């Protein structure tokens, strides 16, 4: 039984508490910006903390991609005159992110890499779920909806990439164990 993994999942599970059935467009815009910023911050932490090349490359990809998305989201909000509005979901996201960062900062080496990547897998799964169930169906403005739909393949690619790194880290851990 892999206890560290169970612990990591338990810690991040509440991070996307999508309690709001129908967020407004300004709220959706805020959720999008918050969700991206969270992953940029985690990526920056991983880049400075991890010594694993694969983890560092993944972290850099998160920083690059989520920054690009936020640039677009900010430009669209400005164009549409939408002022991103804080809400329960974005607050829950921030709380979950703060817990995750506090947990990660306590860890080092392989433990850090594993906890970071495990969280990234869970996080991107949750974001995909939120995109499909809340954000796309909820967005009223066509351009906002279009932006979120356009982001989806990148999130899916990040999830695939994170799972790949997760599997590689697992292999390393296994080969390091005594038989």
């Amino acid at each position: 039984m892999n206890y560290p993994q169970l612990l990591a999942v338990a810690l991040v599970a509440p991070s996307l508490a999508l309690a709001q059935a129908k967020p407004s467009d300004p709220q959706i815009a805020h959720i999008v910006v918050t969700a991206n910023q969270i992953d940029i911050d985690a990526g920056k932490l991983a880049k400075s903390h991890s010594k694993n090349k694969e983890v560092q490359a993944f972290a850099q990809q998160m920083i690059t991609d989520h920054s690009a998305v936020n640039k677009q989201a900010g430009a669209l909000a400005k164009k549409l005159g939408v002022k991103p509005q804080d809400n329960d979901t974005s607050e829950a996201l921030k709380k979950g992110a703060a817990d995750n960062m506090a947990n990660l900062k306590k860890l080092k080496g392989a433990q850090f890499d594993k906890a970071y990547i495990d969280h990234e897998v869970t996080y991107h799964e949750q974001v995909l779920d939120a995109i499909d169930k809340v954000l796309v169906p909820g967005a009223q403005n066509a351009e906002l909806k279009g932006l979120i739909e356009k982001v989806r393949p990148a999130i899916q690619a990040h999830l695939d990439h994170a799972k790949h790194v997760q599997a590689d880290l697992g292999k390393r851990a296994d080969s390091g164990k005594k038989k």
Partner: protein
Amino acid sequence: MKFVPERLEVAAGDRITWTNRDIVPHTVTARAAGIESGELAQGKSWTYVARRKGEIAYICRLHPVMHGRLIVK
């Protein structure tokens, strides 16, 4: 997130233009063939003239899960 089409046949001397229709930046990179587009932001294009016959396997340097193949005949 992928190259469309993933496999493209062209004649030697053809100009091939990649346009990034995604929201995140991408590259067209084939180190062995000396191809490097640099980072292309959303909407940006990059053109390559295929002079030498053969097969070129390329990736996006930022997203190595993206693969493409250029066949120059």
